[in-house]
């Protein structure tokens, strides 16, 4: 290829365009898309929950509100939901750490909240968290609140004795 000035001008312009485009792509992927080019060192602990609600792989793991890792997988094991939690290498967690499923506000995303315990031993790679709190079912809570206790756990008292529940209340004027 000859090196006329016209060629080099085209080359420089195309090169500048490619740089701009690749920079845009990189910013979009890494900063906005959250692509981990240099994946931070992580270790995995497992936690079993009675119910994970709508927790999905990739959901954040927070300790004191700060993101320290993400959920690697959610699977069914022994009729429980077993999650694998990938946590940053630098963060040591005591053995009696409590994992609970929380959500950010009523409509927010679900995440795993960790509350460190007081044990002197730390969790190792692949260890199983024994203390967990299942997801809170908002519609169940609402139902309990709206319909009172009787809906969730039937009242033990005989229906007739409960005040205000008499199907044919006596006329107070008599």
């Amino acid at each position, binding site marked *: 290829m000859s090196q006329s000035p016209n060629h080099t001008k*085209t080359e420089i312009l*195309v090169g500048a365009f490619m740089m701009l485009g690749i920079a845009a792509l990189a910013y*979009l*992927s890494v900063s906005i898309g959250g692509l981990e080019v240099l994946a931070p060192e992580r270790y995995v602990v497992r936690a079993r929950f009675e119910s994970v609600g709508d927790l999905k792989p990739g959901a954040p793991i927070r300790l004191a509100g700060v993101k320290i890792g993400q959920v690697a997988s959610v699977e069914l094991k022994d009729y429980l939901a077993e999650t694998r939690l990938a946590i940053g290498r630098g963060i040591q967690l005591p053995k009696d750490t409590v994992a609970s499923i929380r959500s950010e506000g009523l409509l927010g995303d679900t995440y795993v909240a960790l509350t460190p315990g007081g044990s002197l031993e730390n969790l190792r790679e692949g260890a199983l968290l024994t203390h967990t709190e299942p997801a809170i079912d908002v519609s169940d809570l609402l139902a309990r609140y709206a319909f009172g206790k009787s809906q969730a756990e039937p009242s033990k008292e005989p229906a007739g004795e409960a005040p205000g529940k008499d199907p044919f209340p006596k006329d107070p004027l008599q």
Partner: protein
Amino acid sequence: MRMQSLQMLGWLGRRGLIAAGNLGQMTLFLLRAVRRFFTRPFRAFELLEHARFIGNRSLSIVCLTSAFTGMVLALQGYNALVRFGSEAKVGSLVALSLTRELAPVLAALMVTARAGSAITATLGNMRIADQIDALRAMAVDPIQYLVSPRIVAAVAVVPLLTAIFSLVGIGSGYLLAVSMLRLDGGQFLSSVRDSVEWSDVSGGIQKSFVFAVLVAWLGAYYGFHARGGAKGVGVATTEAVVATSVVVLVSDYVMTALLF
């Protein structure tokens, strides 16, 4: 009555055969163009020239359309979301719709309108002026010389235009949300970051690779097979732009159904 229905059946069959023949011809055209790119002589300078034409020269129109797309998304999203009191999610609406759908599709449509039509018109003019036959007479493979560099340049450049489209769109949506809608900028950006996953970005970029091939391929095919003088070039250009736009939108649906 029986004759008529037989005639109709024959007409349908004829159309079907013609359509299948065209499709086969187009596929062979693409395969030949791709194969010839990897044989000597390599047309490096043509590649650069077309990359400049499709990429650099489309940059301003891509930035302009993406800025307005981002702003209108923020505006409309705000109007819809404020009714549920979730105007904090405007950022995620703007960013997700841009990265997954609008950036690849609109960038491809803009490139079709600007560069695809130019490819058809150029090749069509060369065809009716017998320049393509002249190339062949000079033992220059016209597909290798005219078509392959355009397709490869489009594939190299359109995904980058798509990324620029997304970014400029999100940026202008942010500016509008902060300056006119009085939304919190930090909240906007954090909802963008939280909602957009790497799979959204990569899905959009994968789409744009396919669109790039479609734009250059169909544009070159229609130009290469133009006939009938100056009017024919016009007809070919119109057909190419219409066909490319339709195929881009249809294949976008198919890819969305398969990818996400």
